[in-house]
């Protein structure tokens, strides 16, 4: 295999792992943002007395 192609496959590997973490990260962010929006919607529906 060509040297540049090999270097690219090796060099892209750590970033592949970063992309895996980005997916986990996005799941966490979406889930938390969903809970925040649920809570603010509930707070808006029942204003504090």
């Amino acid at each position, binding site marked *: *295999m*060509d*040297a*540049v*192609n*090999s*270097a*690219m*496959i*090796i*060099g*892209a*590997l*750590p*970033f*592949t792992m*970063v*992309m*895996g*973490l*980005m*997916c*986990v*990260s*996005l799941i*966490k*962010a*979406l889930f*938390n*943002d*969903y*809970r*925040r929006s649920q*809570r603010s919607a509930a707070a808006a529906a029942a204003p504090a007395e």
Partner: protein
Amino acid sequence: MSTKAPFTELDIKTSDSGFYEGYSVPIALLSKGVMAALVIWALVWPANANGVLGSLIWQILGDFNAFYIIITGFFAFFLFVLAALPQTGKIRMGQPGEAPEFSNFSWFSMMFGAGLGVGLMVFATAEPLGLWGSNPVVVAGEVAGNTPEAVQSGFRYTFAHYGIHAWAIYVVTGLSLAYYAYTRGMPLTIRSALTPLFGRYINGFLGHIVDVLGIVATILGVSVTIGFGVSQFVDGVYAITGMEWIMDMGGEAPVPGTVGLITGLVIIMGLSIVSAVTGVDKGVKILSTLNLVLSVILLLTFVIFGSFLFAMTTYATALVDYIMHFVQISFGAWTPQDPAAFAAALPEAAKPLADDLIGGATNAWGSFDGFKSGLEGAAAELDDATLAAVYDAGNAGRQFGWQAGWTTFYWAWWIAFSPFVGLFLARISKGRTIREFIIGCVFAPTAVCFAWMTILGGTAIDMEISGVAEGAIIGASNTAKLFVTLEQIISGGFL
């Protein structure tokens, strides 16, 4: 239960003045240092660099080939779920009620400008033709390569490499960047996408590392692309002018020579410097408009003078075939074949010769006939039925070799490009919902890439099946295939 407000206090120190004004000094120096070290290594000790990379790559592929395949399959299904769930699909990446920044038309045309690059020019004919000759079904010995029976499986893997997965890789990065930038007002940078996991720790050295990994991957990906682009440029100039001094005429077919490649690189570098210096609204705009117009002319040439009917029937059958094999393409990963398992699977007569047989039987780039003719000594004495069983026993090894050489190369290429394309997709998608973003940036470009591949590649295959090209296209180098196909259209029975 309470949920804390998200961490958004990203603090990236940029230089106030001097050469790096507006840039982060550690990130710039780290990524330049890594690239400079690589280039010096390759220039000063080319033999050492070639040897080390050559052996290291197969070691790494042995351990990580399956990782590349499966995580890419996961990216695709991850996006399907995000687009399908109403809780996530409807989220708008922008302030509530904000309309998309760009109209649908300019959104799509900019997207194609970013995606339709060198890969689609070099591989429009090279990919379908290469896979027509060798793909996992051919490697398994079920059909013979370069026959009408191999067209279906050839296009299945062409679609796999240029379809949903390629764009899913770009969109995973693009979506992560866009989400934090437009819902939390964070900067469009790789480290923003990891703040939910690492919080304030991302402000330190960890953040620099993550950004540098993205930059180094991008530079390596761009290097591969420029390599193909320059070779194709030289091949194209040769096809038109016939200048022999730019080619290496020593081999069976002329390939771009060193002098030609360096000349081509200097010309392309000069043009890109001019277009960058004159600014986005002059040079870059002229070049991208020219690119779009010429691409359309090329496509129309193939539609009118090529095998359009063959292309359209292939498109329909290959699409169905691709969808039916989608799960297998996503998760069917191979690992290197264990020599002990190979020896155990051999028929009794061949068992003592396992060491002489494994090399040929697991070679993904040969055929059964090639395997037979390559045998020496006692192994060559075995009868055909035994040898067929031996070849069958090596299938797992051949499948691994094929996958590591084709699919994993593409996945790595698209991943290396994803910070670049992802950033661009994020930049043009402010105000879109997650569902719009995924459908618009995964499915729409996929459908267009498939048409491009079937119209250009289908014409080349049809000319080889019908015998018009007499093997000329198959024999040409990857970067020359497009021009040889055009020559055949002009000189052959199609015009």
